[in-house]
Structures are given as C-alpha cells and as structure tokens.
C-alpha cells in the first residue's frame, strides 16, 4: 500500500513517537482502518473526558467521540502534521461538542469564547493551609469523585481550558491552538479555573484544626 510523505520540519526535529504517528496517519489516509484504530486508541479516553467536560452528558459525549473521530478520518488529508495529532483532534471534538450543546439547548450562542470576565470569579473565599499530602486522607475512589465533582462545578469555558492545560498537560500555546483562543484568553481562564478549584478543594483538604477566614 502506497503511503504519502509529509513535508515537515527537518527529520531530526521529529520524535520517534511523532514519526510513528505520522506513519499511522499515512496508512489511515490510504484506507487502512487498523492503522486508524491504532492512531486514535491512545486519545479516545481523553477525548471522551473532554466531550464530557463540555456536554456534561454521557450519551452526548459518546456521540461526540464517534462524530469527531469519523470526521477526522474523513478529513485526514487536511492534517498537515505541523501540530500534534491530538491538538487537531481536540479542535474537531470541541466543535462537535459545541454543536451538540447548541442542538440540545436550541441556543445558537453557545461558545467557549464568551466574555464573562467580571473579575468576581477570582475572589478568594477561603484561605486555609492544606494537609501536606491530601491524597492520604481519602481512598482513590473518594479522591476521584472529589476532583470530578469540583471540576464539574466550573463553567464550561474554564473546565475545558483546565482539562486540556493542567489535566492533559498541553502547553498554553497548544491549548490556545486547540480551542482557537488567544494565548491571553487561555491564561486568564486558566487562572480563574485554578483559583476556583483551589477554593472548592479547600473544604476537603484543609488541615484539621485550621480556621479558614475570609479574604479580600
């Protein structure tokens, strides 16, 4: 089966992992379903989590996953290889998830680009030192449920930026690229998301005996 080659950065700048991925992209473009399966396998759970973070509905998130990967398959020739495959897939998945939300809410204005910067969401409500190792106090399941509950309470624009940047580990620039936002917009949302989560987690993780007090 013939494979296409990509005109990318000089060969020495591409990691082994990226090279293997581009090889899978080439094979998938030529109609190799197994290669496409191997290409998307490492990203399915992360894309599902991202879709859940936007739609907050399991059924919708499963649809988004299906639609996003199918769309990616149909448009593989548009993947130029100058960004990470994951960043490219995220962009498609975010668009699919927003379309799903718009359909569900019959609201054409649903967007991750809303301006809701009132400053109020950076207000610190509680300051208390935490246990040095908060994970010790809870079982893994309890910990997972505390973290999920806290992140679910964030507005979608904060949840999505935080998930990509701090949970998935994308850089600020990659997050901006994937969400088609400016770098300053990502930074400002990330700060708010981090502060809001810190606030929410303080009620679980604060050091016993410490009195929290109002601030600002």
């Amino acid at each position: 089966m013939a494979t296409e080659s990509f005109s990318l950065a000089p060969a020495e700048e591409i990691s082994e992992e990226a090279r293997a991925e581009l090889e899978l992209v080439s094979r998938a473009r030529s109609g190799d379903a197994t290669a496409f399966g191997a290409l998307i396998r490492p990203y399915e759970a992360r894309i599902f989590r991202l879709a859940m973070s936007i739609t907050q509905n399991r059924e919708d998130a499963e649809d988004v996953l299906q639609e996003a990967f199918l769309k990616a398959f149909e448009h593989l020739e548009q993947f130029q290889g100058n960004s990470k495959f994951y960043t490219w897939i995220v962009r498609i998945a975010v668009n699919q998830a927003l379309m799903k939300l718009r359909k569900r809410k019959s609201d054409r204005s649903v967007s991750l680009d809303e301006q809701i910067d009132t400053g109020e969401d950076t207000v610190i409500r509680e300051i208390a030192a935490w246990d040095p190792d908060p994970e010790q106090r809870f079982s893994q399941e309890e910990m997972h449920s505390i973290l999920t509950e806290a992140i679910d309470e964030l507005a979608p624009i904060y949840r999505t930026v935080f998930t990509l940047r701090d949970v998935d580990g994308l850089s600020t620039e990659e997050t901006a690229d994937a969400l088609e936002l400016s770098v300053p917009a990502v930074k400002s949302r990330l700060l708010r998301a981090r502060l809001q989560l810190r606030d929410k987690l303080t009620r679980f993780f604060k050091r016993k005996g410490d009195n929290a007090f109002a601030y600002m």
Partner: protein
Amino acid sequence: MLTCKEFLSELSDFLDEATDREIKAKLESHIAECPNCFVICDTTKKTISVYKGMKACAIPEDVHERLMAAVERKIAATQKA
C-alpha cells in the same frame, strides 16, 4: 511591594515558571511577607498537582467497536465509488 491583587494576577505564570526574572523576584518577595498569598500559592500548586495525576476513565469497548465499524463502512463506500 506588589499588592495581593497584583500577585494573584501573576500567580498562574508564576506557578508555570513563565514570568521573567524581575517579576519572579517581586512575587517571591511578596509571598515571603504575605502569609495569605503564601497559602493561596501553595494550595493552588497542590490543586494543579492533584489533577495532574487524574486518569481519564476508559471508554466502553462497544463505543470503540461501533466507531471502527463506522470507519470500515466509510472505507467500503469510498472503494465502491
């Protein structure tokens, strides 16, 4: 000295080690003197750290299988055309 508000606005960059040397020195000197901002900085750092290790739940196997079946159908349709 920076105000607490100014400190907070730089907190993310500070934790990401994305501030220049001059700002970094100002931020460090602020937390050395402001116990509230020290706690906020420390607990925000821990917030990021507890989420960093959070694993995504595996998707149900049938979701992957349905997707691959749809891909196969798409390939078959393309080859027929």
